[in-house]
């Protein structure tokens, strides 16, 4: 029977791998190479490869005195939860990975973390920022992104300070894990800052048109237009704002300008759009990790991917850096010990500080507020490294 052949072939393969596994560290890397998240996976793939090559070029990771090379076990989960879950099982029980990163986004991270938790395999998630992922009591799940709430608070405080005339806000969010949670955070932040919400709407995942929403926002005449979604939504939203002559003193799009595609696809229309993100190349950090500095990471990424890195690439590399540091500190590949080391980690990397809170999220960070000015992303915050002042959108 078919399965028997498959079984025996794979059993042999597994044995071979097991023998081989003594001197390498295997890290499972789920990638959505096909399906709705395919554009994100490419960035992750580049960042992971950069880290792996640098680590291996340096002889590997120091595990209690012996240098061990790393091997990435990559797999396409097709942007599909069922596939992601199966892939986690395969990586753990078949490929015998020691550690894992997680799929892109909060939803699929939940699915993979659920499997890994049962096996006690540490997972470092580079792109999950919704607290609903981390509030399920998983002990083996860590994330390099700060919670969504923090992002919005930082930005609201800055904007209301600098433009005290801003009194009303229109919120348009995508009905999806991360963008929705960002929309909800905005509602809370607006209330806390005393802003009036004049328009509040969610749009569905398969949305192909914003004209109805934008016409309504136009009629509401808000001081601040705040839209959440992924790049293709936001490019279209911005385009239709221009088509319909919708404008406001502040226009914020999350993630928006955090992605280079946003500017590439909008040209001039991208100007003066603000956003907040987890990482930007303009925030310079120096560190003793494999990259050494933000600039080193940026330059290599640019030459490899022929595109500017965004937070996805940086956070993906940072997740592996955190894992590396934890392994070195634990001095062993023992999963529980590495997990404890991750929990106790307090380091600065090219990506910024990483210190996982009680729920596993990387909380303690100052998040960059950005704006596109003359086709370039400039930092408005943190204060110490800001590159420009907030400009009015209209």
């Amino acid at each position, binding site marked *: 029977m078919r399965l028997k052949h498959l079984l025996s072939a794979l059993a042999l393969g597994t044995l071979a791998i097991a023998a081989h596994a003594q001197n390498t560290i295997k890290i499972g890397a789920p990638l959505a*190479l*096909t*399906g*709705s*998240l*395919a*554009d994100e996976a*490419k960035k992750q793939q580049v960042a992971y490869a950069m880290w792996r090559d640098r680590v291996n070029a340096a002889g590997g990771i120091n595990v209690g005195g012996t240098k061990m090379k790393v091997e990435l076990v990559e797999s396409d989960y097709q942007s599909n939860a069922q596939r992601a879950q199966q892939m986690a099982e395969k990586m753990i029980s078949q490929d015998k990975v020691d550690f894992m990163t997680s799929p892109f986004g909060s939803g699929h991270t939940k699915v993979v973390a659920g499997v890994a938790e049962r096996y006690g395999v540490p997972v470092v998630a580079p792109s999950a920022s919704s607290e609903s992922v981390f509030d399920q009591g998983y002990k083996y799940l860590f994330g390099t992104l700060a919670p969504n709430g923090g992002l919005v608070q930082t930005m609201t405080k800055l904007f209301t300070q600098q433009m005290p005339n801003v009194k009303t806000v229109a919120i*348009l969010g995508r*009905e999806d894990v991360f963008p929705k949670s960002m929309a909800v955070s905005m509602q809370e932040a607006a209330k806390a800052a005393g802003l009036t919400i004049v328009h509040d*709407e*969610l*749009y*569905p995942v*398969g*949305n*192909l*048109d*914003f*004209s*109805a*929403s934008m*016409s*309504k926002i136009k*009629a509401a005449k808000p001081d601040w237009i705040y839209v959440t979604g992924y*790049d*293709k939504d936001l*490019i*279209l939203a911005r*385009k*239709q704002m*221009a*088509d*319909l*002559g919708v404008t406001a003193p502040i226009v914020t799009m999350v993630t928006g300008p955090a992605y280079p*595609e946003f500017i*590439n*696809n*909008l*040209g*001039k*229309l991208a100007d003066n759009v603000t956003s907040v993100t987890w990482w930007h190349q303009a925030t310079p950090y120096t560190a003793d990790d494999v990259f050494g500095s933000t600039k080193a990471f940026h330059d290599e990424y640019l030459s490899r991917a022929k*595109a500017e890195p965004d937070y996805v690439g940086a956070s993906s590399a940072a997740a592996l850096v955190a894992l590396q540091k934890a392994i070195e500190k634990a001095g062993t590949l023992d999963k529980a010990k590495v997990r404890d080391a991750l929990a106790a980690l307090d380091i600065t990397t090219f990506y910024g500080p990483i210190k996982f809170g009680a729920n596993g999220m990387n909380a303690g960070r100052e998040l960059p507020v950005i704006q596109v000015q003359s086709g370039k992303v400039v930092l408005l915050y943190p204060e110490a490294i800001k590159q420009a002042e907030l400009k009015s959108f209209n």
Partner: protein
Amino acid sequence: METYIQIIANGLMLGALYACIAVGFSLVWGVLNVINMLHGSFIVLGGYLAFFAWAQLGVSPFVMLFVVAAALFLLGFLIQYGAINRVVSKPVLLTLTLTFGLDLILYNFMNVVFEATPRRITLDLGSLGIGEVMLPYDRLLAMLLALAMTGILYWVLRSSRIGRAIVAVRMDRDAAALMGIRVNKVYAITFGISAMMAGACGALMAVVYPITTNTTGLLLGKAFTICVIGGLGSVPGALVGGLALGLIESFAGTWLGAQYAILIGSLLMLTLLMVRPTGLIGKRGYE
């Protein structure tokens, strides 16, 4: 008042794009009796070709539109001639699965070759402002294209030799074959025309929407809805269906919120299927 005019304008502008998306799909459905799962990928492929010609060679998408159309005609012709024709008279499930398999291949290659990063041709043409009502020029062009495609197709089907052959095959395949029409070739040409229209639509859409392989399924879904609303296999039906869906989504989006727009569209489609399966325009269809 102007609000209403804007809502209607929004709906019609969106509807024109929808009509572009659906015309070719409808043709294949009507004549070949095949539900072509490749259609969304054809549109995206057209968009990519136009984008790269613009970004790397500086060719205007409005010129490229014709090149893309020709290229996709050829691709469509070959796919039909080489593969689908072999099972074209088999049940819908079989041909559908075949085009689904073909779509996996095309999709995967586009994904690897072009990558899924969204890409848009940043020719911002601005809008025509009549009072407070704004009509974006690119969507006006889409409307023109949709009308032109429907018109040309209508004319071709009525007046040209190949058009008459297509109509004959659509009415009675066996009789057409007896009359000496090479049915397989007609099928391949029809499929080619459909792919051509998808390609032209994609080239134009690249100006309006960011093109990415992620949207293939979405576009296909819209084509489905539009065809059902307009009438399966009816070419003018695709135009009417597109405009109707655009208006419905525009009003639903305004009154109920964006979230309800798609739901209302789907519910309308289900109701129509049950009450008036031939669609708004369709006669007794192509049966």
